[in-house]
């Protein structure tokens, strides 16, 4: 089994006559790092809640690691796919950071040394180990977000879905979270993150999925999707400024995604130009 998620003709509506997701077909491989994007209300959250069985399709099927979500309960599927909600305050209820991160694995039946090892590893990964005895509400927003990620890491799931994990965080805290996700991904965990920030997509998304009105209108690498003017327009996205500038200049073979690539491109051009002059 190489696919962690397979959706087939997935259709969903919250009420009987409304359709929020239309015929979604999607395969996600183990070990991918995917950015899920689209304008407000396009169905990103709704789709992502299907990945761990919080919502079940009204039509079509979704398999999580080969299991039909309609045949399993959420707490069982959560072993495979963890979910980090947009607002960490919807889940924090313990009086120490350690206990908060231990809640999930405890529910899985872990105890003693093994539990301790898991929780310490998770807190270490998000850089909160030194705060293990602190009251969670005294942490900053970014730290609380990392705590909720730790409490998912501690459950040892194969994939983690994050709904706008960097919204409301400053630049530094956002990057720390994204670097953490990249690190987890390099350990083999599948990462699916929802975001409106195209700079983060460019930097961290190996693959990008664009939703519009409940349908997937693009599914490719960010580099390729940034060239699709119509898709960008329809999904109310804006490519990173440096990419837009390069596209306007029409001097680059392949529009760069960040300043570094832009600079490299310029250097190449200068070299070519020098070669032309000398020959």
């Amino acid at each position, binding site marked *: 089994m190489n696919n962690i998620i397979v959706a087939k003709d997935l259709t969903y509506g919250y009420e009987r006559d409304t359709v929020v997701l239309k015929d979604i077909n999607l395969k996600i491989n183990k070990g991918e790092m995917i950015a899920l994007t689209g304008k407000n209300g396009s169905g990103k959250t709704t789709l992502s809640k299907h990945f761990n069985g919080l919502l079940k399709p009204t039509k079509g099927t979704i398999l999580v690691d080969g299991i039909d979500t309609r045949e399993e309960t959420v*707490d069982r599927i959560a072993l495979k796919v963890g979910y980090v909600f947009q607002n960490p305050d919807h*889940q*924090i209820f313990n009086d120490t950071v350690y206990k908060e991160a231990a809640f999930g694995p405890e529910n899985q039946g872990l105890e003693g040394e093994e539990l301790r090892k898991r929780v310490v590893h998770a807190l270490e990964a998000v850089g909160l180990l030194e705060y293990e005895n602190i009251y969670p509400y005294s942490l900053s927003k970014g730290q609380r977000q990392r705590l909720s990620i730790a409490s998912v890491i501690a459950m040892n799931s194969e994939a983690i879905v994050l709904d706008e994990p960097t919204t409301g965080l400053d630049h530094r805290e956002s990057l720390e979270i994204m670097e953490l996700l990249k690190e987890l991904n390099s350990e083999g965990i599948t990462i699916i993150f929802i975001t409106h920030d195209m700079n983060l997509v460019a930097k961290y998304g190996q693959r990008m999925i664009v939703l519009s009105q409940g349908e997937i209108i693009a599914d490719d690498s960010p580099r390729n999707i940034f060239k699709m003017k119509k898709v960008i327009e329809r999904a109310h996205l804006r490519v990173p400024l440096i990419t837009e500038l390069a596209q306007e200049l029409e001097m680059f073979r392949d529009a760069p995604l960040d300043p570094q690539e832009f600079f490299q491109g310029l250097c190449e051009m200068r070299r070519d130009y020098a070669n032309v002059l000398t020959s």
Partner: protein
Amino acid sequence: MSSPVSYISRDSIIHDLHPLTKMIASLWFLTLGIILNKPVYLAAILALILVCGFAASISREIFKSLKSITVFAFIIFLIQIIFYRSGEVAFYIIPGANLLPATLEGINFGISIALRMMIILLSFVILLSTTQVRDMMMVLVEKLKIPYDYAFMFVTALRFIPTFLGEVAKIQEAQRTRGYKVDGINPIKKIYSYVPIALPLVMMSLSKGELLALAMETRAYGIQNRRTYLKEWRMGRMDLILIIGMFLLIVLSIRLV
């Protein structure tokens, strides 16, 4: 998030009535529902309420809530006839074994109780779906002279119920993905197992309350004693006729009892 009963904006004579008239009418239905006990009278009152719903052109919505209210009323009816012991036996609920006798009086009593339930619930459904909360608040403050702060507190609490239900749903979702389950039988354990839901809710409510207070203060809440209202209501002729009519009918029904 829509709550089970919320204001439905329509153009109707009921919507145009003074909020005070409608509040009196709800109390009137409540009183009649309590003092009358013959099923015929109660059925007549219920019919009158349905007419009001029709006049408010919310018959579709009323019909929807009527369905769930009827189920509820029927269960109450069943409980009554099972536990009512005196009087002539009409039939047995489990006929073969002559078990659980239902008496004539019990049936009568059960029907009355069920009708009462429906009257009380429906009259409040109609009140809440045809009267805006802020108009009821105006009546509480201006006509009944309740201090504005208390009226505001009451109305704000009502207004936040749907929000809280939404928050509870989100918290439940978050904890479920962490393998949370409500533990079964042991009552102490059961209460304890609600902590993961209750605590985030309390924390969020506190911070919401603080924000609300701040937002109100920055918009000069409490700076002046005299308040004005977006819409000033005036008692019309229809209101007076209805209030006098209701008064007379109450006197009449006291004689009926």
